[in-house]
């Protein structure tokens, strides 16, 4: 009898931890369409690049169909890469819509934002349509699968990218490299502080992976 009591309480508490942290605000924009992955291992990769390294060039197709190369911004704009793990998941769906408010800050700091996910273009099209009109390009790193995420060393073992913010200055050098806990949205203040520092000093933040 004693054992049953303990088992049942264990199950109850276990269920609670199992669904943690399903506590992100789901916008009305997504209603019941968001998949709940549960609590994931915070990070699951070993970055191969660090602040001060030259960023590897890449070419990815945007949702719009346009092919965007990192090198096209060299000498013209700072580039902020926002890698998110997967479409239709809670934290990711609550991230880029907020960045829709940042256009002016990016323009003031001579920077462009590029959203990147390993999802394919049709999926990204449907997902980002729910976010309103995003001002920044969203790129598909679907095929070869996760190649760009892997080139930065931030592809997780299950094939999705880490939740990461990487800032690259006009010279093509990595100035900020932040891999966040996949279960949490990066703090906006950290991002904007690093962006302003990069623009103001030309050297930017020195956060290490």
């Amino acid at each position, binding site marked *: 009898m004693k054992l049953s009591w303990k088992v049942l309480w264990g199950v109850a508490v276990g269920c609670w931890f199992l669904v943690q942290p399903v506590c992100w605000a789901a916008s*009305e924009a997504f209603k019941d369409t968001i998949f709940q992955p549960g609590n994931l291992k915070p990070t699951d990769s070993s970055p191969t690049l660090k602040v001060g390294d030259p960023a590897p060039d890449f070419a990815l197709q945007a949702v719009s169909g346009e092919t965007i190369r990192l090198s096209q911004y060299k000498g013209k704009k700072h580039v902020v890469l926002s890698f998110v793990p997967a479409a239709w998941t809670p934290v990711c769906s609550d991230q880029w819509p907020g960045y829709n*408010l940042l256009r002016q800050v990016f323009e003031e700091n001579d920077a462009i934002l590029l959203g990147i996910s390993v999802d394919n273009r049709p999926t990204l099209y449907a997902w980002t349509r729910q976010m309103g009109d995003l001002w920044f390009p969203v790129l598909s790193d679907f095929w070869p699968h996760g190649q760009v995420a892997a080139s930065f060393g931030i592809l997780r073992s299950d094939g999705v990218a880490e939740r990461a913010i990487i800032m690259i200055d006009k010279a093509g050098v990595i100035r900020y490299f932040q891999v966040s806990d996949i279960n949490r949205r990066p703090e906006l203040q950290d991002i904007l502080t690093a962006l302003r520092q990069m623009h103001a000093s030309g050297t930017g933040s020195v956060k290490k992976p």
Partner: protein
Amino acid sequence: MKNNTRLAAFFPAAVLCCTLLLVQCPAALADGPAVGSLFPDIAFAVPERSEDRQYLKLTGKGTFTIQQIPVPLVIVQVFSMYCPHCQKDAPRTNELFRKLNDHPKLKDTVRLMGIGIGNSAYEVDFFRKTYNISFPLFPDGEFVIHKRIGEVRTPHFLVVQHTSKGAEIVYSRSGAIPNLDEFIDTIGRRLGQ
């Protein structure tokens, strides 16, 4: 006797399990707290901005509860700067604030405040500046308040009226307020004005 003992052992575990799952699952309580229930006793930090303190008629420092705002009715906007519909609705919520302030009677008897779910103080302030919001906004960076009010989807509006029961929720709805003038009329009728 043995069965009764088993039931006695199982019941609290089952209640705990169901309660915790309900509290944790947004879909289960997406419609928010029920009309007729009481607004939880949540402590908010007294705003730093003097205009916010003055608007909410708060004196002193530390924390306050909705129950302590000395007006008959408080409208609570639950939002997030990361929510597209909240962004779209921000100008309308500003319009609601203006209409309440312009109302000859409601301007003294109704207060409007926002809670930024999952938003840090910095993010709430960013949202405030982006949309030039004049009413008080409060951060809920760790979703503590969100859990207390049933993990509603954003935006969500609650109307809390001080009745004989306490801080009673008399309106609870996810999504934008469909018609501001009708909403204000309904509030006016509730207050007999």
